[in-house]
Structure formats: structure tokens, C-alpha cells
């Protein structure tokens, strides 16, 4: 039995979603191990559990970003007398996220937070920090606004130094489910030889942040690059200290390697579906042509695009009914907007938002499954649909292309359309509606694809093997 510390950022157990469900499932299937949860959250109010924690979770620790620190004037004055030119120079180097060696930067921060300079805020207001920062400014940023430069770096380093001073639960394996701040903590654990480090990435963290940053009007143009470099640095740091790096599919594995991961550490473990469970579902025919989609009603699922597609296709699918299956309470404002769009388009008679439901009841009679997301990793909803013999039309996001049309040895299990394009989604729906033979063929292919490539028993076996291997012996205190 090993003790695994799962490190999450803004997800399990406080947010319902793909990653959270995955973590929940992983803990449940590894009953022989003990788990600690280390959750990085934006505020204390965020910490409202949405999942009932499994019995083998022994500890939950929350770390709030941007914490408050008391500052001692005496300490600041004392810090002013502490001069260390070498450390100053090393810290200056650590501020250059693009070029710094991850190990070097972590060592400098570890040294700074060792106690000599006080708490993170006292470090930030120290002469050493100031001199390093001014040096970095003069060498790389001297044509920018110093005020913004100062606050940007203060924000970044105050968080990093604070994270370094947090107490990390003892464990044999530190399993981070993203890079970012969660990855940073796992790297700190690795650097301190507290245990083995395992990283599973569902998406690619810096890419997601990059989009947010570039689309944020409140971040000054000159400093967008700083933030982007910072998040790529966090990934590189995590990759450096990780003993094993897991991704859900090949494309992401290649991105990890491109962003600095060692190819030898990288492996792919796909999500898995209990094929027997879905095969047991008894098919019942229902009047008309029945189309469904399983999702949380949130903007990233682009539900409005799906509604527009349904409206466009319905004219040529007279007897079709549409079931939008899943919880609607996560973003009620968005749900209301969807309802309004549905009313505006006069679709109430053939579109149903079911709310949180037992999806198996719908898999009994659905003829076709849709996915209209603008971002996904490896969506379980389409794997489950395929396991039930339902063909899928999905947007070209995440691993959908590979799942639906990439398994050449078996055949296609659905159609891929460009994200946000409701006309293409509508066309694809009509195409399958008019060709029932193809629909049947795709449904059969879906079952075969899941049987061969996305088996839950295989997913369980691979993680059990990983935990056993990484957790064996005394993971702690390894040298």
C-alpha cells in the first residue's frame, strides 16, 4: 500500500467536470492505496465539496493563492543588512522564465524561503528582491512601464514563494493532474525528495492559459508574454521533476515533448469505458429519430451552437427529437440564455433539456449522439455513447478526431465537424439521418473501437501498475 498525494488546481473535489470525475474514479478504483488531496484554490469560499470523498482519502489540504502575509518592520530592516550578491544574481536569472534552467530557479527559491529572509512578503519587499528585479528590468524590460513590471513580477513571485512555504502532505507519490501551480507543488516535492512525482495532463495547461492571457484586455501588451513564458516555465519545471508523465493521447504527448518533457518519461494512458456495462443496456426503439448529447450546460460545451444546428437540420429531419442530457445548474445564466435561444427559435416542441439524469436510460433509444464543445481532452461521453453502439458527430477538438475517424483498422464511428460551425453540424446530422445503413455501420464500429482501444480494465491496470511501481519501497526520502 502506498500513500498518494493528488494535487489539483481549481478542480476536484470542488468543481464538477471531466478532470474531477476522473480523479474521483481513480481514487475509488485504487482502494488498496491511501490518498491525500492537495487542492489549490482561489479563495476559502471556493472550498465547497461537490463530491462525496471516498473512504481511502485520509487528508485534504487546501492552499489558497494570493494569501495575506503579515510583515515585520524589524525583519525588513534586518533583511536590508543581508547582502548576498551571488544569490541576487541567481534570483535575477530565475526571473527570466524563458531562459532559466528549471532546477536552478527552484533551488534559488528554496534557498530564499529557507527562513533567513522571513515570510514570502518580507522577501518580496527585501533589498535583495528589489535589486534582482531592477537588474532583470534593466536587462530585458527597460522600455516598459516599471510600475506594471513591478506588480506583474510581484504577483508571480509572491505566489511561487508562498507555495514553497506551504506544508506538503507526506506521501510516496505526488500525482499532479496538471502542470501550472499544481505541477509547481509536485516539483517542490520532487526537489525535496519527498517522493516520486507523477504527472497526468488532460489538456495542456500553458496553452489554455495562453489563450486566456492573450484574450485579456486588462493585461498590458508588453507583459502578456511574461505571463505566457511564466506558465510554460511551470510546465517545464514539472516535466523536469516528474518521474512519469502521462497524457491521454498521442497528440498531447508530442506537445509535452515539444514543451520540454523527456520523451523517455512520457506515456499515453487513454480513458477507459466499462464496455460490458454499456453492452448490457437493452435497446428499445422509440418513435422518430432520436438525437442526444451528454454534457454540463456550460459555455465551453457551446450548447448554443448545437441549438442553432438543430434548428437548421430540423427542416430536413421532420420526425427528429433532441435530448440535451446533463446538469444545468453549474452556470445558470448560460442555461437561461440557452433556454431563451430555444424559445426564440421555436424549438420547445422537439428539444428537451433533461437536467441531471441517468444517461443509460437515454442510451437505450438514442440513434445519434452529438458533441459541440470548443475544447475537450478525451471526452468520456462519446466513449460511452460508442460503447452503447451510438454513432457520434463531434467537433474537431481534443482527441475526438482520433477516436471517431482515426482507427483505420476498424473504420469510422462518426463524423467530425469544425468547432463553432453549426451549419456543418446540421449537414452531418442530416447526412446520417438520411443514411441509416451508414448509421448502423458507424454504431458497430464504435463498439469495436472502444473494445480495442478504450477499455476501462486496461486504464485501471495501467494506473495500478504505475502506483505500485512508483510507490514501492520507501518513496519518501529517496535520493
Amino acid at each position, binding site marked *: 500500500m502506498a500513500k498518494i498525494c493528488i494535487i489539483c488546481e481549481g478542480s476536484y473535489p470542488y468543481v464538477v467536470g471531466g478532470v474531477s470525475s476522473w480523479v474521483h474514479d481513480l481514487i475509488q478504483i485504487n482502494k488498496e492505496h491511501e490518498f491525500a488531496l492537495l487542492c489549490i484554490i482561489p479563495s476559502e469560499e471556493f472550498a465547497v465539496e461537490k463530491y462525496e470523498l471516498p473512504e481511502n482519502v485520509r487528508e485534504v489540504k487546501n492552499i489558497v493563492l494570493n494569501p495575506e502575509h503579515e510583515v515585520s518592520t524589524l525583519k525588513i530592516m534586518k533583511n536590508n543588512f543581508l547582502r548576498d550578491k551571488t544569490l541576487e544574481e541567481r534570483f535575477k536569472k530565475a526571473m527570466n522564465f524563458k531562459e532559466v534552467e528549471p532546477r536552478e530557479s527552484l533551488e534559488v527559491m528554496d534557498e530564499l524561503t529557507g527562513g533567513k529572509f522571513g515570510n514570502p512578503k518580507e522577501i518580496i519587499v527585501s533589498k535583495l528582491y528589489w535589486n534582482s528585479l531592477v537588474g532583470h528590468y534593466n536587462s530585458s524590460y527597460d522600455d516598459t512601464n516599471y510600475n506594471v513590471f513591478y506588480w506583474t513580477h510581484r504577483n508571480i513571485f509572491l505566489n511561487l514563494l508562498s507555495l514553497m512555504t506551504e506544508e506538503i502532505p507526506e506521501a510516496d507519490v505526488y500525482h499532479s493532474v496538471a502542470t501550472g501551480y499544481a505541477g509547481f507543488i509536485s516539483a517542490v516535492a520532487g526537489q525535496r525528495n519527498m517522493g516520486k512525482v507523477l504527472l497526468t495532463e488532460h489538456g495542456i495547461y500553458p496553452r489554455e492559459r495562453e489563450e486566456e492571457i492573450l484574450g485579456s484586455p486588462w493585461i498590458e501588451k508588453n507583459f502578456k508574454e511574461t505571463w505566457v513564458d511564466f506558465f510554460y516555465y511551470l510546465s517545464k519545471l514539472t516535466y523536469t521533476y516528474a518521474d512519469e508523465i502521462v497524457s491521454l493521447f498521442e497528440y498531447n504527448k508530442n506537445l509535452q515533448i515539444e514543451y520540454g518533457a523527456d520523451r523517455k518519461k512520457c506515456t499515453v494512458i487513454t480513458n477507459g469505458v466499462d464496455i460490458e456495462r454499456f453492452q448490457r443496456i437493452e435497446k428499445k426503439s422509440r418513435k422518430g429519430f432520436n438525437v442526444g448529447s451528454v454534457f454540463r450546460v456550460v*459555455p465551453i460545451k457551446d450548447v448554443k451552437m448545437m441549438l*442553432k444546428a438543430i434548428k437548421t437540420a430540423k427542416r430536413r429531419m421532420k420526425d427528429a427529437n433532441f435530448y440535451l442530457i446533463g446538469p444545468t445548474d453549474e452556470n445558470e445564466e448560460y442555461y437561461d440564455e440557452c433556454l431563451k435561444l430555444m424559445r*426564440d427559435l421555436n424549438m420547445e416542441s422537439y428539444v428537451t433539456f433533461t437536467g441531471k439524469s441517468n444517461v443509460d436510460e437515454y442510451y437505450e433509444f438514442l440513434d445519434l449522439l452529438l458533441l459541440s464543445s*470548443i475544447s475537450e481532452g478525451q471526452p468520456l461521453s462519446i466513449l460511452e455513447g460508442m460503447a452503447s453502439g451510438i454513432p457520434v458527430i463531434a467537433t474537431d477538438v481534443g482527441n475526438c478526431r482520433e477516436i471517431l475517424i482515426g482507427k483505420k483498422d476498424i473504420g469510422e464511428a462518426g463524423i467530425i465537424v*469544425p*468547432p463553432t460551425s453549426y451549419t456543418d453540424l446540421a449537414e452531418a446530422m442530416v447526412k446520417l439521418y438520411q443514411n441509416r445503413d451508414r448509421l448502423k455501420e458507424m454504431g458497430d464500429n464504435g463498439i469495436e473501437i472502444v473494445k480495442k482501444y478504450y477499455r476501462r480494465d486496461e486504464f485501471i491496470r495501467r494506473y495500478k501498475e504505475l502506483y505500485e511501481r512508483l510507490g514501492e519501497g520507501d518513496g519518501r526520502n529517496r535520493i
Partner: protein
Amino acid sequence: MKKLLFITLLIITGFLDSILVFYTYFDLSMHLSKFWIYHFLIGGLFFLVNEVIFKKDLAYFDVVIILFPVLGYGALFFLEVLPERESEYSEVEESIDLKNYIKDRRELEYIDVEADLGIIGAYDSLAVGTPMEKKKFLMGFNPPERSFKIDVLKKALVDDDLDVIHYAATELNNIDQGFQKQISDLEKKGERESLFKVYKDYAESQLLEGEIRKLYQKKALEILMVLPKGMYILEELHLLKDMGHKRECQKIIDELLKGEEDSEIIHFAMRFYYENNLYEDIKRLKERFPERVRNLPFTILEKDLREGERDG
């Protein structure tokens, strides 16, 4: 005897066909489609009489005979008449295309400016670049014309690389969400005039197609009905035209042309007539407002300049 009758019949047919060709030649309002209908009626008559009276089967010879004069006159028609008609239309086309030209010019100017920043090479990269180059280009691509941006993002949606697709989709979704949010806020506030403008912009943004686009056009039109009459008359005309309500559009144009001269309305009318092949109406409009029509391109340029200054 029969031979004489046959030749007479051939001459009569050829004569009728020639009249038809000449009529088409001199009356510019005669549609080409009508010419073909009458020509084939005459031809049909010739074949029928040939069959009934002379008991002769149709032969290639007969077909060549009936087609021969028409081919000759037809060649003359294409050489002489169409260029004349083209020249009439070209004036209309000149002013119609001007707006498109200005739009293209603005896009080019944007790309020219961005060339200094090294984005011009990246613009080409959308077709041939690496995924990283494409993504970099899309991130820095922010032209003043939103529809231009949407066009480019839509192209990126069908790229081979998932990253490029993802970024384009996110951007398109952001733009769409922006419209939706504006609509939602304005609906709550009940600001009809602003709401009309957003509906109109949304419908024209290239984000919407088919029935969904029509829905927002309809919503915009519904608001216009409750705003003071004539406040956005040109926008109303554009909406009606885009939605295919030709009759209503024509009715409003007729009413407006009775009133004060307005170069925008005249321009719209010309375009409407041109697109619907209403040649007589174009002629009438040119006769009635010769100066206005002649100066139309300059008026459009001036208006664009004013709008440019205001936007700048």
C-alpha cells in the same frame, strides 16, 4: 410545287426570326430569355409545318437551316448589343463595387501596416506555415473590420492542426459570446435603438447563416417597426433585400424616390434594380437623377472618408 412551298416557309421562318433578332437588338429592355422563347416557338412552328404538310422527318439539315440566320445575328448581337448593355450596367457596377473595393483596400492597408511588425509573412503562413506560425499569426491578427477577422478565423477552423483549430474556435466563440452578451444586456435595459444596431451587426457579422441569420434580421426589423418611421430607412431596405422581401423593398424605394434626393437611396435603388435585372428602372433612375448617378462614386468615397475619420 412542294419545293417552292418549302422554300417560302423557310423564308417566312427566317424573316420572323430576323425580326425577332432585330427587335432584341434595338430594344435593350428585351430580356435574352424572351428572345430564346420566341426563337424556339418560330423554330417549332417551322418543324411542325414541315412535318404536317411536307411529311418530312426532322433532319439535321432542317435544324441547321433554322439555326443558321440566328447564329449569324446572334454573333452580331453578342458583339454589338451586349457590350452596349454592359456599358450601361458598368456604371452601376462601378458604384456598387466601390464599397467592396474600399473594404478590400482597408484590409490590405491593415496588412501593410502589420507588415512592419512581421505579420505579413505570417499572413501567408496561414496557408503554408507551421502550426506555431499559424497560431502566432492568429493571435496577433486584429484588423479593424470584424468580418475580415471572422473570415480568416473560419478558414483556420478547417486547418489540419488541432491547436490552430482550437484557437480559431475559441476566438470565434468569444466574438459570438460578445454579441450574445450585448444583446442580453440591451434586452434587459430595453434600449431598442442600440439593440437594433447589435442585431443588425450580428446578422452581418458572417457568424450567422441561413435561418439563424434570418431570425436576427427579423428581430432587427421588428424593432424598426416600433422606432420612429424613417429613422433607419436605409438599414430597413438592406434588411428587406437580404431577407428576400423584394416587393416591400420596391414599394419603399418607389416612395422614397418620390421625395427628396438622397444619394444613398439612389445608390441602393440602383443596386437593387441591378441585382434584380430591372433594366428599365435603372434607365429611368439615370434619366431622372443624372447628376446624382454620375457623382455616386464620389459621394460614397466622401461618406467613407467621414466614417473613417469618425472611427479613427
